[in-house]
């Protein structure tokens, strides 16, 4: 049994029973899962959560599933790390990194939303799942579907990084590369979901799918010792995770599990695709769609469905937003790797680069706790750094050659062939 009361339209308040519907039939607004918080009081406690499994299902009482979890039994509960080296570089007092580049089994925050969506898909009787994806979601859907024994269709833009393409294909889904950007893929998937009776996780299972993102925020709070960071910086693409982290914080406050320290949340986007940050900086509610142009492909969503709710969460919390150029993103990827030994994808570089701007501009005070949300892994996006790193020297296998190499000040002995990287497939 669960504490779910049903679904409710975030725009007009119309209520629905739990089923595979994703938009309000009255106004097209997105549907949100409603819980009975009063019934949770005294039952959902620090102790009940701590007694749960060391994966994202320890927060099951706050997730919209009725039966047993069907996948994700090894997902979530990723490291929350104190970033002492980066603290020195950025001159801040208390910095944490929530590291979903280590999320199992496909190395991104998407394991959270997919574990919930696939468990729900099975509950609702679907035998086929799918998604519109910029890469990470496709990887996760393909993997979890394989584990759960479901058929999978994953739709992606045609120009994704090779690692993201292979990272899905290895699990055996049907993959379709769509000639267009993510927003084109999205529109097509909406029409596919209309025509075929499949669970497209981020279309018709969206209300359940998005709830999984809350576990990121729950973990931050629990791992910080049942406390909330004062400032949380989060990347924004379609706008799923940021409002859900904020919702997770509010739910823990509501249940009395953490003190309300008025946590503020900040949106980070690439300068080449910043419709949400642009709206925040302009003080507008309206998010104007854009045509993305950035190396941060995983967050290159020009028409973010939940962009409006990111703006609202940021505003309500007293946070702000910042964007980063492609060069700044790459520098931040290197900085995070060289200070904290975390190799993140461009979305993570965007988060760090934006955080640096927010700190330097005084939006985030240097003496309060800060949490950076790292949501993806750099091994999937080698293309973005291959020309940005010094090529290694190549020498004969003799000690004298090595001595000579050192004497030259580690300069290249001979120009080696560049590391081959093929883009596309």
């Amino acid at each position, binding site marked *: 049994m669960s504490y779910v009361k049903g679904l409710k339209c975030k725009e007009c308040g119309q209520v629905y029973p739990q089923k595979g519907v994703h938009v309000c039939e009255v106004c*097209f*607004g997105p549907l949100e899962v409603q819980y009975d918080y009063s019934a949770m009081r005294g039952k959902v406690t620090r102790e009940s959560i701590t007694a749960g499994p060391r994966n994202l299902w320890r927060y099951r009482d706050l997730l919209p599933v009725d039966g047993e979890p069907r996948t994700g039994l090894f997902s979530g509960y990723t490291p929350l790390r104190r970033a002492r080296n980066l603290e020195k570089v950025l001159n801040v007092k208390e910095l944490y990194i929530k590291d979903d580049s280590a999320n199992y089994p496909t190395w991104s925050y998407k394991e959270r939303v997919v574990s919930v969506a696939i468990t729900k898909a099975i509950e609702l009787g679907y035998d086929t799942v799918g998604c519109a*994806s910029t890469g990470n979601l496709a990887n996760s859907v393909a993997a979890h579907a394989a584990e759960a024994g479901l058929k999978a269709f994953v739709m992606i833009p045609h120009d994704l990084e090779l690692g993201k393409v292979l990272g899905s294909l290895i699990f055996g889904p049907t993959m379709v590369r769509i000639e267009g950007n*993510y927003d084109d893929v999205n529109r097509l998937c909406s029409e596919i979901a209309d025509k075929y009776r499949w669970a497209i996780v981020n279309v018709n299972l969206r209300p359940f799918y998005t709830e999984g993102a809350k576990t990121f925020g729950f973990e931050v709070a629990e791992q910080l010792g049942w406390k909330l960071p004062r400032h949380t910086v989060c990347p924004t693409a379609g*706008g799923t995770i940021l409002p859900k982290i904020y919702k997770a914080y509010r739910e823990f406050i509501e249940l009395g599990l953490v003190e309300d320290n008025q946590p503020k949340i900040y949106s980070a986007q690439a300068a080449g695709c910043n419709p949400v940050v642009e709206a925040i900086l302009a003080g507008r509610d309206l998010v*104007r769609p854009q045509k993305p142009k950035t190396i941060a492909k995983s967050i290159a969503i020009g028409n973010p469905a939940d962009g409006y709710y990111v703006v609202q969460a940021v505003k309500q919390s007293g946070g702000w937003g910042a964007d980063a150029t492609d060069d700044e993103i790459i520098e931040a990827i290197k900085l995070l790797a060289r200070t904290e030994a975390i190799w993140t994808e461009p979305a993570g570089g965007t988060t760090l680069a934006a955080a640096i701007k927010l700190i330097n501009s005084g939006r985030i005070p240097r003496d309060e706790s800060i949490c950076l949300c790292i949501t993806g892994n750099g091994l999937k996006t080698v293309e973005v750094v291959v020309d940005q790193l010094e090529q290694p020297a190549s020498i004969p296998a003799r000690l004298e050659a090595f001595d000579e190499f050192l004497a030259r000040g580690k300069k290249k002995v001979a120009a080696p062939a560049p590391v081959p990287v093929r883009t596309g497939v």
Partner: protein
Amino acid sequence: MGVKIRIPTPLRAMTGGVDAVQVQAATVDQALAQLCSQFNGMDKRLFKQPGELNRFVNIYVNEEDIRFLNNLQTPVKDGDDLSIVPAIAGG
């Protein structure tokens, strides 16, 4: 001929299950006005007020979002395809 408007699932309850409707129109606004005149209650699904679409209604003319064109004043001609698409979560 005319302009073909594709009706998404959440709106088909109002069209008696019909998934596409042909209208005669010179702009997106006129096309949607015709659709609303044919089906009772459709205007409230699409429009917050006259001239302003609900926040989560996306309209495409031949695969291009009208917000990149001329919004509701975007011209349409015979043979054009007009899609009504709800917003979707990221990925």
